[in-house]
């Protein structure tokens, strides 16, 4: 059995094949941004040539397609139809020109406080149709508590649409502005993503790999089956950093509070682990000009990498945040962090002679000994990484809590160990260690850790259950599931139901799970009182398949 992992990165596309005894093949090809498919096809071709195709069971793919298409604004027009009711002016969250606000409202318990205005809805749809819109996003405030208005909008759009995203299907978490932008992006990249998915499927067929299971990486450090990803392509944004973090999990046995660095060419990504688990962004990822509800690992990027240029400012040595071409060792003109590491003989790559000559003359021009320049440059980079890490950890430790129990428990993150990966990882290891005085590890195969991470990442999903026993209702927004429950429905019943639905949902995605990775992440039950008597309970349960890898590899 072989598990393939492909990570389409900014410069390289990395691919690996992992068997029961470890890495069986690995390739690195240059990424062709105008033709991602060819990069994937090339790397896949290499892998297949070095392995037995019949043994391949699964391909996990991380792609920058949706991310790039959003960042470059290269997507299709979307008709966004929202209904907000009282609160902030919904026009503040206008994502595009075909944005329509329909009168109507629901309150926080999902009760309709104002009917949806059908006339304005019709007008909005006509206007979109006249503008040539073929994909629609329907989002109403508090739809995770009651999707009725979103469903009415969907019904009214009817045949006008090739694809419609309803806000409540994306997640049960609350945040109306983010739900709007998430639904919008999901529609915007839907067509381009689906064409890509078709092409992947065709390619695999051509290569005789039509039977293997294909998963797409998500930013939360999990995967989703290709078929599902066609409906929620927005979930594939920013999956690159997640692949790296998963790689570290696969390669190292992380048990403590830890810091993970992925030092790349232009940036260093910082992730934090609490115990053995990576931290998830509380709300969701930011992309373009809008924050979203796309769940993501908490990864903080800073402008320090191997290719970061060394410069002088007020007689002080600085590194980054700019990249002014490659390192001198690789034909560039301005010395970089990598050149400084080469000077200190921490790093052996590129044209060493050229690097050292260039480095010496830059130092001389600035009245410094080359040793001094290298020390200061590396020191600057490590200080930057150190300071950013400290403020990230402080920020995490500052995150709000809502119960006395949580506050008094006061579980602060205190990193005990550092893991480094990426090109300059080995070269930077000792400098990082000297700064932090924490055990610092660079795993073997750190250069393809991202692809290894992609290959071994398990399928994840999350859901939120909401019950209101006064009304006798239970609702799971992201599954569109709604059922009646008895008045004595309790928190334990809700937890059981949430877990069952989570596992059943995995089953529908043809993912076998024994439930050992399923966990309740939060659950609460509030008595609802009217006057002086308890009229029911307001129950909320969140559960998830823990992000992680199917097996570790070392």
């Amino acid at each position, binding site marked *: 059995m072989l598990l393939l992992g492909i990570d389409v990165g900014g410069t390289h596309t990395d691919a690996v094949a992992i068997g029961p005894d470890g890495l069986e093949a690995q390739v690195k090809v240059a990424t062709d941004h105008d033709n991602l498919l060819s990069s994937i096809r090339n790397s896949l071709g290499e892998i297949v040539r070095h392995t037995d195709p019949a043994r391949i069971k699964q391909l996990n793919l991380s792609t920058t397609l949706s991310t790039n298409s959003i960042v470059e604004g290269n997507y299709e027009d979307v008709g966004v139809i929202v209904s907000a009711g009282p*609160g902030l002016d919904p026009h503040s969250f206008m994502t595009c020109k075909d944005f329509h606000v329909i009168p109507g409202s629901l309150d926080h318990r999902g009760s309709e406080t104002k009917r949806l205005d059908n006339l304005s809805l019709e007008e909005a749809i006509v206007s979109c149709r006249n503008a040539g819109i073929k994909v629609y996003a329907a989002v109403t405030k508090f739809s995770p508590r009651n999707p009725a208005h979103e469903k009415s909008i969907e019904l009214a759009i009817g045949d006008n649409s090739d694809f419609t995203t309803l806000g409540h299907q994306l997640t049960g978490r609350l945040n109306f502005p983010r739900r709007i932008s998430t639904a919008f992006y999901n529609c915007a990249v839907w067509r381009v993503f689906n064409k890509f998915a078709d092409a992947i499927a065709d390619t695999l067929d051509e290569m005789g790999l039509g039977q293997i299971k294909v998963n797409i990486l998500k930013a939360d450090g999990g995967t989703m089956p290709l078929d599902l990803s066609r409906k929620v392509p927005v979930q594939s944004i920013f999956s690159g950093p997640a692949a790296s973090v998963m790689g570290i999990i696969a390669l190292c046995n992380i048990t403590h509070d830890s810091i993970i660095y992925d030092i790349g060419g232009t940036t260093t990504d910082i992730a934090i682990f609490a115990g053995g688990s990576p931290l998830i962004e509380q709300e969701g990822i930011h992309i373009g000009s809008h924050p979203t509800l796309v769940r993501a690992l908490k990864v903080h990027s800073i402008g320090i990498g191997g290719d970061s240029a060394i410069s002088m400012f007020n007689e002080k040595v600085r590194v980054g945040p700019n990249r002014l071409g490659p390192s001198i060792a690789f034909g560039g003109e301005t010395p970089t962090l990598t050149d400084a590491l080469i000077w200190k003989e921490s790093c052996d790559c590129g044209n060493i002679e050229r690097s050292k000559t260039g480095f010496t003359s830059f130092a001389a021009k600035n009245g410094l000994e080359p040793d001094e320049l290298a020390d200061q440059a590396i020191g600057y980079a490590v200080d930057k990484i150190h300071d950013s890490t400290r403020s990230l950890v402080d920020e995490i430790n500052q995150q*709000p809590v809502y*119960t006395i129990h949580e506050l008094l428990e006061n579980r602060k993150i205190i990193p005990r160990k550092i893991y480094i990966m990426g090109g300059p990882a080995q070269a930077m290891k000792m400098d990082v260690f000297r700064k932090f005085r924490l055990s610092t590890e660079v795993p073997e195969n750190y250069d393809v850790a991202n692809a290894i991470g992609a290959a071994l990442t398990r399928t994840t999903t999350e859901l939120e259950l909401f019950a209101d026993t006064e009304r006798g209702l239970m609702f799971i927004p992201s599954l569109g599931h709604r059922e009646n429950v008895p008045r004595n429905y309790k928190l334990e019943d809700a937890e059981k139901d949430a877990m069952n639905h989570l596992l059943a949902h995995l089953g529908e995605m043809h993912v076998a799970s024994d439930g050992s990775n399923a966990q309740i992440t939060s659950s609460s039950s*509030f008595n609802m009182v009217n006057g002086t008597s*308890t009229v029911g309970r307001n129950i909320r349960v969140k559960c998830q398949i823990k992000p992680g890898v199917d097996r570790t590899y070392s």
Partner: protein
Amino acid sequence: MLKADNSLGIIFFPAFDWAISPTHPEREERLLYTQDQLREEGLFDIEGIREYKPEVACSEDIERVHFCFPEAEAIATRSHCISAGGAIKAAKLVMEGERKRAFALVRPPGHHAMKTVQGSRGFCAINIEAIMCEYIRENYGPKRIAIVDTDCHHGDGTQDVYWHDPDTLFISLHQDGRTLYPGTGFPKESGGPKALGRTVNIPLPPGTSDDGFMMVMEKAVMPILEDFKPDLIINSAGQDNHFTDPITNMNFSAQGYAALNSMLKPDIAVLEGGYAIQGALPYVNLGISLAMAGVDYSHVREPGFNPKALKESEEVMNYIATICEGVKDIYFNPPAKSSEGVVSGNWSVRHRNIFYDTEGFTESQTESLLLCENCRGLLKVETQREGGPMGFGLEIPAAACESCRNQGYSLLEEAQVKSRYRYIQLINRKDKDYLRYGF
């Protein structure tokens, strides 16, 4: 994306695991829907608005303000310490310039907690605003502070804490005490002998709505504030004036609260009461947060809001106008003598019985202020809970003269020698000397 005109820190602490009792108005569910509303609106995604974790107030923070008998730990639960700590966090954010303004959206409330506390009154055990204000003075130096209490109930606790303090202006807007707990808060209650006119009570008739409140703001509150020139304005932001509140009879709305806040421009707001947890709190809290941040709140509207039906009659408006004139006069031309206490020797003495409604006992108390020519005077309290032991409290103010300070220490010594008291507490703000004796 939206951007706040004023950076705002929100300390949101719903205390989802604390209640007085399962069906008590002050229970776990109280801020649940507010949380839903703030999340769903994406409030914390607005540039300039950030959520913070509360701190936990310690015994010293409490005993700097209150005479606590038997001691702070016996009176304040964890939840109270966090609520006060939330207010302290709000103060730090503003005083250290991290945020222009801050809103402590915390529970339980505190404005019925008086200078001396032996238990819980009106859902309050310790006065979270006062603890915050004295934390500010202790750590950032002397400050002129105005506390504007917009809770529907008279802020009798805050009034009591600052009764003798000329540097704290306490203005309370509330439903007339003849119609609502705690039954106090009349204009003639205007401060102790050394702080006359520094307590301003504005009792309003039941049914007062947005127009009435705004008239009070324009005609009384703002001119008084303009004259007092505070370094800091604090809003005790109780939200039980709302037309849907189950335990009061006023007609204020979310728009009204936001507009009031927008005029008052408080540096710090601290949540007090408000028990219409579904129909009012989510909208009022949103309105206040947006108003403090300087973000458009004109679309915030609670279900069932009908301004015409809520509007007060012309007679009521005229009556309110008369009250405004009256209280302004009391501030600008304070009476020569306090409404409370008799002079005995060079002490002004008040005897009081205070009922602790939440716990159902009465405290009898004798409070005396030394009428000093050179400072605001030494304060002493003798207190006894029904059938309980005697307690003695002594406060030397921060700007005490040498003579008051010395007299304070000799009274302390005398109290110890006489051993009439089971508990003795000294608050010496001048030297930051805080002592407690007893068992």
